[in-house]
């Protein structure tokens, strides 16, 4: 006989003996039950309201940021025009014949991002494969803890290391006049993105069911064959999402590019030239600009471009990630 039933029978027996005390115990228990029930209900609905409010706050903040950016950049749209900004090749915000073309900054951002991804995607994905398929569980746990700690290191620290280590090396070994170029910034931005890519790819690889690994081993595949023929394709959408998130991080990275990219206001033809990025431009010029001027509004418009591009990248990453999660929910 199970326990609640036993208690119930006990209560009935005691009830039947007609003892005053046992009757009080039963009725007290009942009242307690009813009042607890009422309290839980009140708490429950309060919690629901709170959680709903907090949940919506995040969304309102996002909408608020977008609205604020659009509102603040209205003057730029009116006086400069959206196309002459997005497709403009010159950035002379302080000259008497001011030009506000975003192309130098956009191309700079693209070069830095390409270099960063070229550096960190192969390393990141292979590290993730190693951690998930080859490393012992003890090593994996330690490595993951370290990698997740790396995410919290302020990027200015990486910038500093880049300045003191990478810049002299680049100047020494590459045919460039200065070490402060897109390539240098891109490589260090790659290091900044690396933990994100490793961590999320590793999660995606490990979420592939164990049965698939065993199925592949049982067919006479080695660990490496299993990893690249079964596990990587199965986790491809998750790995892709990791790359996209890393890319979002690379485009948004400010401090490292400000310190290392050289910040020249020209369209860089290759990563071997000094570049300025969208983030770098905003960070550098906001402090010096007259509030309410056209230049001020143009910087907000640039911020809006940045916001939209990272938003789209993260959205794609999220959608792909969601699809990969659904794949194994059979």
């Amino acid at each position: 006989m199970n326990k609640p039933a036993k208690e119930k029978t006990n209560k009935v027996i005691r009830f039947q003996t007609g003892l005053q005390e046992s009757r009080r115990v039963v009725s007290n228990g009942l009242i307690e039950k009813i009042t607890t029930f009422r309290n839980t209900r009140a708490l429950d609905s309060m919690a629901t309201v709170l959680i709903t409010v907090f949940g919506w706050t995040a969304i309102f903040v996002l909408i608020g940021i977008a609205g604020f950016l659009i509102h603040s950049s209205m003057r730029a749209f009116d006086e400069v025009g959206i196309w002459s900004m997005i497709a403009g090749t010159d950035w002379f915000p302080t000259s008497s014949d001011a030009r506000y073309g975003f192309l130098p900054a956009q191309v700079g951002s693209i070069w830095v991002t390409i270099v960063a991804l070229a550096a960190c995607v192969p390393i990141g994905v292979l590290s993730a494969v190693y951690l998930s398929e080859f490393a012992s569980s003890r090593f994996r746990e330690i490595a993951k803890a370290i990698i997740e700690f790396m995410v919290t290191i302020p990027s200015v620290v990486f910038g500093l290391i880049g300045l003191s280590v990478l810049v002299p090396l680049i100047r020494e070994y590459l045919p460039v006049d200065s070490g402060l170029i897109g390539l240098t910034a891109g490589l260090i931005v790659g290091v900044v993105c690396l933990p994100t890519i490793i961590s999320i790819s590793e999660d995606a690889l490990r979420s592939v069911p164990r049965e698939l690994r065993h199925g592949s081993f049982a067919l006479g595949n080695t660990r490496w064959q299993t990893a690249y023929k079964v596990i990587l394709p199965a986790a491809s959408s998750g790995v892709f999402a990791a790359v996209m998130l890393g890319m979002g991080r690379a485009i948004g990275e400010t401090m490292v590019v400000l310190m290392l990219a050289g910040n020249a206001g020209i369209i860089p033809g290759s990563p071997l030239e000094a570049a300025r990025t969208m983030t770098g431009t905003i960070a550098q010029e906001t402090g010096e600009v007259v509030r309410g001027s056209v230049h001020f509004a143009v910087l907000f418009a640039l911020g809006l471009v940045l916001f939209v591009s990272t938003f789209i990248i993260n959205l794609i990453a999220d959608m792909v990630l969601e699809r990969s999660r659904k794949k194994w929910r059979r």
Partner: protein
Amino acid sequence: MVKTPATAMTSSVEAVASKTASFDLQNVSVSYGSEKALEGVSFYIEPLKVTALIGPSGCGKSTLLRCFNRMNDAIDNVSVEGLIALNGQDIYAKAVDPVSLRMYVGQVFQRPNPFPLSIYDNVAFGPRTQGVRKRDELDEIVIDSLKKAALYDEVKNSLKKHAFELSGGQQQRLCIARALATKPGVLLMDEPCSALDPISTGMIEETVLHLKESMTIVMVTHNMQQAARISDTTAFLLRESIEEPATLVEVTDTTTMFTQPNDKRTENYITGRFG
């Protein structure tokens, strides 16, 4: 204990592959870390027969099955002692490469586990690993394997379809076809019908009866009717308490096992008195 001298791995696996396969187990024990899961198992698995491993949950049936193709190697902390000989070759000898062993000793798992690929690519997976590249050669292997697994008629017009679009029973037969494509001499089946409906189960049982004409089959099952229906030999494993490792209680031909078991514990189990 007689250990066959270790020869080079490829030659040894090829040598055994030319004959029908039998397993000889002598005093086999398996431990997970310091805990012994299975102790002192000795018996002979006859070629071209279906051998069923039965016993209550946690009695080490699957653990024992995974010894036959060294799948235990893929699990941390597992150590296997004693001798497991495939046609006289100790498969735990240093010279034996588990990877080529597994091409000859195929396995079908408890839950269907097709790869996220097309039906064709699933079956062609093993042969491609073995280096088969020619299109017509692959086609032949794929069609032949699907026919043997009794799946061909249902999928012959949709070989390019994604494997996940198949039903559970079809997926399991696809996994059998995938295992057959490497032309194994032994097929290990770990409760292959436990996730399937009775009709799919019937089809797989029929397939197994057909397959034993050309290969040795070792099957773990919880379903005693299934063991009685399709196996020639039955081995009963039992772990009598949590502190002790599981042991082999009795191994005999299936009819004897289910009509006049030697051991009282076997009788209790097959008549449903416990487990």
